[in-house]
């Protein structure tokens, strides 16, 4: 998933899309995922990282990451609209 290049991510959890003027707030785990995507990491890499860093299971991460990615798409933060 490609996140828009010009998206500004702040450590406070503030996300700004300069092309639309929209702003968003994310929680820390959400922020780390956005950063990963911005750095070009793959979905598989991110799942692996989350699984190693958090007390949870693969199935939960699978579900929640899918939901989060759908949200990112819906909020027009991705390069192009990837249709699942």
């Amino acid at each position, binding site marked *: 998933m490609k996140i828009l290049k010009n998206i500004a991510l702040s450590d406070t959890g*503030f*996300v700004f899309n300069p092309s639309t003027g*929209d*702003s*968003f*707030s*994310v*929680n820390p*785990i*959400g922020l780390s*995922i*956005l950063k990963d995507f911005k750095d070009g990491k793959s979905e598989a890499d991110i799942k692996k990282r989350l699984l*190693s*860093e*958090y*007390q*949870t299971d693969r199935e*939960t991460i699978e579900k*929640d*990451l899918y*939901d*989060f990615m*759908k*949200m*990112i798409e*819906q*909020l027009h933060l991705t390069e192009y609209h990837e249709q699942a």
Partner: protein
Amino acid sequence: MKKQLYERPLIQRINTGLMNKFGTKTEYAPTSHIDGFAVKDLIKEFGSPVFVLSEQTIRNTYREAVRAFKTRYPRVQFAWSYKTNYINAVCNIFHQEGSWAEVVSGFEYQKAINNGVPGHNIIFNGPDKTDEDLRAAITNNSPIHIDHLDELYRLTELAEEMNKRPNVAIRVNMDTGIYPMWDRFGFNYENGQAWDAINKIMLGERLELIGVHCHIGTFMLSPQAYATAAFKLSDLALGIKKKYNKTLQYIDMGGGFASKNTLKGSYLPGTDTVPTIDQFAEAITTAILNAGFIEKDLPLLILETGRALIDEAGYLLGSVIANKRLSDGRRASIMDFGVNILFTAFWYDHKISPAQEFSSYTEDTVMYGPLCMNIDVVRSNVTLPPLKKDDHVVVHTVGAYNMTQWMQFIAMRPSVVLLGIDGKAHLIRSKEGLENIEMNEVMPEFLKNHQLSVANAK
């Protein structure tokens, strides 16, 4: 390295003009324990969902209400409104505290009798009393509150037939400045119907008029309306004294005091705006004391308060079945309880808290029940931390009406547990099973078999 606590990733648009999250933490502060009992232990033992009632809260609320009235007026009697919650264990807490029973059907009347309430302490209200009901009430000397003229005539006939003198009061409706006016019950004060009924009783000489009764509405937020009602009932009582030289035993102000729930559409939360029981007590007692009774004629003040005495003692514990994302991007949680057992979700925005600790990140969520019906919405918009499947929640202030208006529809009704002051959790109504539902069904002989069952047997 120790792994971090997991929380679902969240992103939301910063909306201006909507609720900001700063300082609103109390709305979703977790409720992990009720009266010292862990929510997760209660669910483990009694299943999910489960209704929980706090004995301590019931008794405290009741004593507080009694104090509010008795410190202001010499003669006060509460009568437990069975329809609000008629699980016998609940009724008996109120009877232990000294409360009479107030019933509105033959079924409730029988329940009160079975609970050991003496007949003369059971107030029989409501528009639907069968001959059988009336005969029982007459035999037991229960105060019968007459709702309409047909009932008045029928009672007169029964009195003759049984050669007894039934104790009666009349239900009066009136304009107290509130809307809607409940003019479908009883006899109207302003247009003289109430006086007509009183005259018929007094001149008919078959019925013993012992009181006057009103019930001005439900979830009332105005103490002033009660002052008006108390004044008008007092006026009737004084009029009866003047015209017939008869002193009535009691004035029954009914119920209707609001609980601390928040009505849908109201801007401020109920906990901040609902009048206290002291405000209601002050309005009612002041009106009666100033009405002009001489001291020895001051009537007994009866209160049929239901909701305000039990609502806050009740909790519904439940669990998340699933989470999903709606087409417009809103989050939705499907719970294992819905409007089938939480009937009051139709008119309140119930306070709902998670039962476990969370970080301060929240999401606006639609909370659905488990029924396959579009109307099954518990909260159309509630701010909650991200709930996972199987997480528990606590719905607050559900003690009134849910355990009587719940329906067996699609799912079974859950267990009800009383958290005792003895430190134990007592099952007071076990959850229903298939056998409870089918118990009253009758299968005609010709429908007992079909091809599918025959094929199955082979």
